[in-house]
């Protein structure tokens, strides 16, 4: 091959790379965000305001503003906690697990998915703290050395939760930030403003893009990915121990860890799609987040949704097969008792809805995808509701049975947490590179253009 041809390819590649940088950095560098961003951000801020007001009332009046009661020691706040932690699984899964599995299609979505993870874990972390009766003392769950020599109860799954979630949070942030470093450098190099130059310069940690830096960087990234991978599985396993370690029929079951992890990935991917399908349209990223990427994610949802459905079936079967009448009744009660509506909502959204993704036509229709993904997350919220609420309302002693009704504040804090999430996410879209530019470039055929004939 002639060198002219090679240089043409290289030229094409350079233009392609520049195109990526332009479209991704362009969003951050633009004077104004796309028109729709402003109303969206305003709405998100308002909803986050609802959260702030609700939290104020919560802290002044007490947990009594919720529907929790003697039998329902745990209710919506814990449902929300598990819901958000679950959503927070997709990011790390996409970044770390798919990275290790060399799934290159991940590059277009991993940055946004990681950001989503962090924001979801922030929302998740909020709930266990505000859920306690005296949140100002929640730090007692941490093993802080003190002169009374009082330590947390290490046998309690809640103490494990503290470690699991905080570790996950820390690693997720580190992993995310690490991925951002080369892109911050790109932004730094492109900007004409001194202020931005300084800020991006600090964030870029002196990145120069030398071969040695790249070499070290990729090693480190691999190690981080290897570290983060077990966390994806451990966090939700530990969260599931909150229930599995309990004695309650409907909680006390060994299937929980895998079942929770599958559910978490399921809901996380649904959330990623819910966010990215509109985002790629708004920010004109269809050439980067391609239809193929979206389809792949739909397939993951289909797979994990079926796993979750299988788990539901197994639970029911075991409840009958074990001969444990308490367990048996709990499941009959779920399906046919006063909360049957929640159970069948869950089954519909989590088992039936993903089955539509068998069809390519559906996997390629953005509106339908977003609709189905929203339904999946509704279903996943109800899954946690069914596990927590129906089990507690009717446990061992019929004398303690009581129906559960949520209050306005249960709803306002949950909805408010979405406000917090979207506020953070919209800020991220506006001020940070929403796509890992260097990874997309690295994964593109152009990156290997110069070497393909050798």
């Amino acid at each position, binding site marked *: 091959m002639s060198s002219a041809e090679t240089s043409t390819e290289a030229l094409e590649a350079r233009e392609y790379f520049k195109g990526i940088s332009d479209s991704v950095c362009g969003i951050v560098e633009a004077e104004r965000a796309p028109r729709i961003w402003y109303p969206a951000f305003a709405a998100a801020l308002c909803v986050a305001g609802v959260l702030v007001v609700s939290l104020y009332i919560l802290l002044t009046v007490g947990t009594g503003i919720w529907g929790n009661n003697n039998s329902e020691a745990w209710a919506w706040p814990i449902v929300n906690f598990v819901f958000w932690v679950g959503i927070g699984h997709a990011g790390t899964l996409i970044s770390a697990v798919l990275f290790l599995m060399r799934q290159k299609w991940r590059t277009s979505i991993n940055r946004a998915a990681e950001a989503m993870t962090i924001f979801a874990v922030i929302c998740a972390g909020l709930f266990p703290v505000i859920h*306690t009766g005296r949140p100002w003392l929640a730090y007692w769950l941490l093993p802080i050395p003190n002169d009374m020599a009082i330590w947390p109860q290490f046998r309690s799954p809640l103490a494990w939760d503290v470690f699991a979630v905080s570790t996950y949070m820390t690693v997720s942030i580190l992993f995310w930030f690490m991925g951002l470093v080369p892109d911050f450098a790109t932004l730094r190099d492109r900007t004409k403003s001194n202020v931005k130059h300084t800020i991006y310069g600090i964030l870029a940690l002196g990145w120069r893009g030398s071969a040695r830096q790249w070499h070290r960087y990729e090693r480190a990234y691999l190690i981080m990915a290897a570290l983060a991978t077990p966390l994806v599985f451990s966090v939700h396993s530990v969260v599931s121990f909150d229930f599995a370690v309990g004695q309650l029929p409907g909680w006390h079951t060994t299937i929980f860890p895998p079942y929770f992890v599958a559910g978490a990935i399921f809901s996380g991917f649904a959330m990623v799609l819910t966010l990215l399908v509109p985002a790629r349209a708004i920010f004109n990223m269809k050439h980067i987040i391609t239809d193929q990427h979206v389809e792949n994610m739909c397939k993951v949802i289909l797979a994990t949704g079926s796993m979750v459905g299988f788990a539901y079936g197994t639970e029911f079967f075991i409840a009958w097969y074990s001969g444990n009448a308490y367990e048996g009744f709990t499941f009959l009660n779920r399906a046919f008792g006063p909360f049957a509506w929640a159970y069948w909502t869950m089954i519909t959204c989590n088992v039936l809805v993903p089955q539509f993704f068998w069809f390519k036509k559906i996997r390629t229709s953005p509106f339908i995808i977003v609709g189905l993904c929203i339904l999946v997350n509704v279903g996943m919220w109800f899954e946690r509701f069914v596990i927590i609420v129906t089990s507690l309302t009717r446990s061992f*002693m019929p004398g303690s049975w009581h129906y559960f009704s949520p209050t306005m504040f249960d709803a306002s804090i949950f909805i408010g947490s979405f406000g917090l999430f979207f506020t953070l996410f919209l800020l991220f879209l506006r001020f940070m590179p929403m796509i890992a530019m260097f990874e997309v470039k690295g994964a593109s055929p152009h990156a290997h253009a110069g070497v393909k004939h050798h």
Partner: protein
Amino acid sequence: MSSLKLTKSGRVVPLGHGASESSKGTAPKSASLGPSQDGFWRSQADLDNTPEFQEFLAREYPEQEEQLKDPLSRRRFVQLMGASFALAGVSQAGCRWEEDKILPLSRRPDGYIPGVAKQYASAFELGGSAAGLLVTCMDGRPIKIEGNPEHPFTGGASTSVAQASILEMYDPDRSRAVRRQENGQGLIATRADALEALRKLRDDAKGTRGAGLHVLSEATSSPTVAKLRQEIQAAMPGVKWHEYEPLSTDEQREGNRMAFGTPHRTHYLLDRAAVIATFDAELFGNHPAALRHSTHFAAGRNPDTGKQNRLYAVESAYSLTGAVADHRLPVRSELIKPILLGLEQVLAKGDIASVGAAILGEAKVGKFITELAKDLQKNAGKGIVAVGDQQPAEVHAIAARINESLRNQNSTVAYTVEDNPQRPRHTDDLKGLVASMQSGKVSGLLIIGGNPVYNAPTDLDFAGALAKVDSSVHLSMYDDETSKLTNWHINRAHYLEAWGDSRSYDHTVTLAQPMIEPLYDGLSPLDVLKVLAGRDDDTNQDLVRGTLLAMAGSDASNNKVWRRLLHDGFLPGSGSRPASVVPKQFAATPLTEGQKLGNSIPNGKLEVTFRESATYDGRYANNSWLVETPDFMTKLTWDNAALIGPATAKSLGVSNGELAKIQVGDATLKMVVHVSPGQAPGSVALPLGWGRNRAGHVGGHEDYKVKAPGFNTYALRTSAGFSSVNGVTVKGTGESYPLAETQDHFAMEEFFDIGTKATNEAVQTRANVQIKTATLETYKKDKEKIITKDAHIEIEKKLLRPIEGREINASLYDEHEYKGHKWGMSIDLGKCTGCNSCSVACQAENNIPVVGKTEVMNNREMHWIRIDRFFKGNPNNPEMAFLPVYCQQCEGAPCEVVCPVEATSHSDEGLNDMTYNRCVGTRYCAANCPYKVRRFNFKYWNKDFEVARNKVRTLLSNPDVTVRSRGVMEKCTWCVQRIERTKIDAKNNRRSIVDGEIKTACQQACPTQAIRFGDLADKESVVYKNQELPRAYALLASLNNSPRNAFLARITNPNPALAPAKEHKDH
């Protein structure tokens, strides 16, 4: 520390009984009121109470008037409490560290150690019957009421009403001043004004030798009141004395008058009875001898020693008696008479066929009566036929005749002479008074206690008649419905603030002594009556002392006898001996034909019966402890409801929680319906004592704009239909009304039939597993294996199949080691009558807050004891059983391991301790507790006490128990404070703790001694022996939590001939 010792030497006689202190007009101070109250403070207080100053207050600071007038919000609080302020502060500070100033006494009064509780004997009178009490005082404030174990009649147990009566004293809604009406306006007046008005009443009446002056008193058995009354009537023969109680044993009196010619009082000696048959009789609830009955009944329920009585109950609405009965027959109250007449004839003729009454022709009733007759005959002389106050006099007379013919009289049924045999029926008495009032013959009316404007029969129109009285005075603890319409309202001193005396049901004279100086300078009935008697200058103490010492046959100056009396709290040997009576022959009404049990009574012909309720007759409507205690049967709080049986409700088309119009004669009341299993078909039970206008912030008050809980059923009660009335119409309105039931309603209707079926099955299965029951026959036959071979344990096994070869105590964790005590408890379900005494006692002992109707509906009630109520079988005639559930103090406690901050942990004596100030409130423990006995402070429930006018309520707090703050978990601790107190005392005195010395609050209140507490390390202890009984079992044993509490299976003693018929569900 001798604080809680029940021995004679341990109890302390309060100071101030000596002659030196008793010259003042008010009750002497009890032991530890703090600094002297002479001089400056007293005169300042007097100045404050002048009408000018009060009016100035009201004019200048209308909104703060209440606070400024509130003597306790200001220096009087400090003055009264002295050192105890600090302790009150400690208890109120709860789990957070609030600061409070300590005001030490400059000189410690003799015999007073701050922080050491003392107990004094006193008495609680309700409806003319006394219960002997021991009142625990902490630093001069009474904080807890218990039965006086040495009292010969009422003993150491106590009723829930007696337990809760202490709350009444600290009720912030109590009237705090005298009020007089002038030109339709209420003006604050002073105690001196009140006494002046009384003197005027007396002096005015003197001229007419008392004519025109009437006294309307609540029922009282006080010998001193009787003496004063005699003196008043001797001086002014024209003075008329009336007595009225909305709930009384009048029909029994009158029945005995019919039978014997004299209105004797009936006593059922349950301890001697082998067969007890009750007819609409509530022996264990609000009966004046309920404690005695319960104790004796339980003494006859010992399947392990083979002694077991048999109880038959025929009644229209569930009573505690019906709940524990071996056989229960729900029939309308109007059918009791024909059934009893039928029983009499069967007893005489020996054959039901020869008794041609329609009601007995019905298979269910016929068989019941025949077998009952056989059983009674077989146990002649050892049987009891008891009739309740709902029934007319004639039925009581029939019962007396049956008891005589069965030779039960003087064996198991005894009669004593009434204290005041001349007194007519209360309703007749009141009717006479109202007639005089209407005709304008009453110039002066003194109403002592009671609340006739609220609870008099509606046909009498007491309020209308009251308007025609020139001068009326009401002595009352609350400025209530009656006080509003009288010329004078005098604030009454609580019984814990005043001297008094009364007789228990067996006539034992019981002394009431003040525990604290009246909080609001109130007057006692003696204060009022002694003015009428012209003995203004005598102190109440001297009056009581004079009467009682005279009765004791000693000189009034005999200090030794008096001090003994103060210590004991009663006059030994003053109970009446049974009178021997021979029934007169009287013609009974023949059995009427045509009366049938009838499962469907046409609307318009329903029967209504009136019942006592949690508020007794309405006087405790403002007592939040009682109002929030779930009814034993309906589990309803904060409301009364019309109780209608499931079949009747279905035929009437009304449902649970629906408002229905109940029409009795011309009167209609819109009231909520509760569909109650076991309620007789065609009969509607209406609990009395709710829907008040002027009770207070709890019970409703028009001035405070507080809507009254419940419905005023007095609106339907006439003097003719005082107990029950027929020809009633019930019409559903379709409107629903929120009911705060603490347990799910029995009939669960779910989305799907399969759900309903599964739920009902689960409840029934669990009822059998959680409340294990066996008949005496089965138990005797197979004693060793009763629990394991019992069909129920098979179900338990099915519930969780044990793994082969696995040891029952297998656990991942090491077993706890015990070097010292190992506390344990046992509850005999065969003895529990579901009376709620334990629950209220627990509330009083452990500073348990009240949460209100909305929060009860949210399932956030705080009671540490939840009495689970199960029904079995046909909803129209079910079997009912109680299971008191509180913390089981598990060895392998599921709560302990899951608490992330170790706020709940195992003590080295086997208790699950709660460290309140370590709790952050994750509520994981509650979620993981299979018994669901943990209670969470979802809000700051004691917030109301921080308002100045409510501060007085904090004085009731037990300083030995932390007042929990918001966001903290709490639960039963088995009264760890009592355990520790006894341990300290034992250690100080270098002795060991005797079995039975430590009594938990629930155990102490329990009249049947179903609850036992003790040391499991002591193999001789009652609780150890109980736990070793073949019928002892652990609740949810299959979970391997190893509770330290054991339940003793409920062993019933049904008549084999009346084996529970397999009735088909007819609804």
